[in-house]
């Protein structure tokens, strides 16, 4: 399969008098890693929040996998096949690694009262299946985490939390993964490890498209196929890392005019 997975056209989001996204356009192709960069406050996270339904767009259209998902609730967007991580890790810290990953799989879990409260045999079967699935997934990131499925996430260092967050997003088998600054709060070495993980995931799940918001240009250069640069809520440039890094408008946005 090839072609476009996500098409955003003329998307605007205003908060009162502030225009966070201004006629924003973005296309994500199937199987690619797209970098989303721009100075602070340029609308990167807002674009994720609008796509995932946390904010309703003021204007514009979002097409995902041939379906118009403009104005969908977060639950509907998740069902359509979009999963995300958050800028400030939003895991449930008192809950176990297993719990956190299973939350990502909510769409596939049985939610009936009879199933959960009365028919415990069936529940146990589904639980064991879910446990194996979650454990296998986390093992691809970190074998040590896989042996500690019942430990609270709050006791783990940042890089492990990011890995769990990515697993929580991946277990739903999304078509599109949105990563909001996965390297935030991590050291250089940790960032490198995490990026290795992400590339590894991509190589195993051929059809997965990833959009990644990132500030570290080294990361962007290494893992993205294509980049979009935002400034003041507008797209100012698009192309490979080589193309955008030499673009005068991009340089001006980051470094200021002479």
């Amino acid at each position, binding site marked *: 399969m090839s072609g476009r997975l996500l098409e955003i056209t003329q998307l605007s989001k205003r908060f009162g008098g502030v225009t966070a996204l201004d006629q924003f356009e973005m296309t994500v192709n199937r199987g690619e890693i797209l970098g989303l960069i721009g100075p602070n406050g340029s609308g990167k996270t807002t674009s994720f929040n609008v796509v995932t339904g946390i904010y309703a767009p003021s204007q514009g259209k979002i097409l995902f996998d041939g379906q118009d998902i403009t104005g969908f609730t977060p*639950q509907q967007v998740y069902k359509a096949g979009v999963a995300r991580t958050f800028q400030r890790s939003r895991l*449930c810290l008192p809950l176990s690694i297993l719990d956190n990953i*299973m*939350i990502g799989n909510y769409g596939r879990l049985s939610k009936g009262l009879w199933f959960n*409260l009365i028919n415990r045999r069936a529940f146990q079967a589904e639980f064991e299946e879910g446990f194996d699935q979650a454990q296998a997934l986390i093992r691809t990131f970190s074998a040590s985490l896989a042996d500690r499925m019942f*430990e609270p996430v709050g006791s783990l260092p940042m890089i492990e939390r990011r890995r769990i967050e990515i697993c929580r997003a991946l277990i739903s088998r999304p078509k599109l993964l949105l990563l909001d600054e996965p390297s935030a709060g991590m050291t250089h070495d940790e960032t490198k490890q995490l990026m290795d993980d992400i590339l590894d995931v991509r190589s195993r799940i051929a059809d997965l498209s990833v959009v990644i918001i990132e500030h570290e240009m080294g990361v962007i250069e290494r893992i993205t196929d294509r980049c979009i640069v935002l400034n003041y809520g507008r797209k100012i440039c698009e192309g490979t890392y080589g193309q955008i890094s030499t673009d005068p408008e991009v340089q001006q946005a980051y470094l200021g005019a002479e």
Partner: protein
Amino acid sequence: MTAKTLDLPKKSWLGLPALAIGLIFVALVTVYGWLFLHAESEMEVLALLVAAAIGVVAGTRSGATRNVSVAMNQHSGIMNAAIIGGVLVVIGLLSQEHFSLLMLTSVLLYLTAALGLNVQFGYTGMVNFAGAAFFGIGAYTAAVMTMHTGVPPLLILLCGGVAAALIGFVLVLPVVRTRGHYSAVVTIAFAVLFKTFLEVNDVLGGPQGLTVGSMSILGWDFNSSPTLFGVEMSFYVNYALLGTVLAAVAFMFTRRLERSWLGLTLDSVRLDETASACFGIGVTRAKILAFTFGNVLAGTAGALYGMMISFIAPTSFTFSDSLLLVAIVLLGGMGNPWGTAVAAAIVVVLPEKLQIIQEYRFLLFSVLVIVMLLFRPDGLLPRQIRTYIPGWRKQP
């Protein structure tokens, strides 16, 4: 809020298997419960309190309590049966004493209601300051139905729960549309409204209240004294037995709810609504489920409570009583049903036993809650990591 995982302790206490220690523990608690409920003088009560403090310290120091937790986790079936057996033994030992049995049954019914609150508050993060109101709805339903209909009283218990759930639906709309403190304020308003409504409503007896008919199952009237081997027992034995059944069932369902995907959903909603929504979790659905579940438990417990004390008035279901229920949940440890059980026993029995406390009980419990929140915010028995299937270990 740090939950700890349950590891096998390095060495077992006195070299005994965990299950044996668990059963000894249940036996000790049974004897203690009997002595405490039976105690007449305040000196006895104080001595027992000191003994409990020493026991807790000794148990923690020697590692015996860890073994008890392990026993609870790995042999949950036997341990639960033993605990129910313990309660039955206490009922048997106290079978002549009206007042002790009344207290014991009150503990069991308050526990049932507090378990419901635990689901709302401890799991889902919805503070319900109208617990006593839902308890009261159950009691008033029982009063009206026992006096004016021929519905079998056992069914009336369920009707009490259903009535509480239905009235809860009216409240759920503003509760779900608001968050945190605001939804707490909605429930406070409801609690006050409920009592005022009862006081001015003549159909429901006004401030004088209503008489409630007794419980009876297939001709077995609960208000008549049962005899066993020719010995006449207090009629409260009937209520204590049914209270035990009710609390056990409520406990089982609360536990199962926690140890299921639904419980996971509730926790997720409490901890982060936005992230929950991004993973498809219906936040409103989860809140309605938890609110209704809790109200059904409170209403059912209230219905049996009404039948037991056979006379109810608005003053039995005030805002202060709701606070007491919230205090039980906080004191025991949010989200831990065993903690709720311990706290229910303390909050209900202690003021009855120590007359000095009786007058100041609301003051003392307020102070206790503040002290707990400051120094031990996870409660007496902090909640543990969710084990979906007790004793489950992955087959290698």
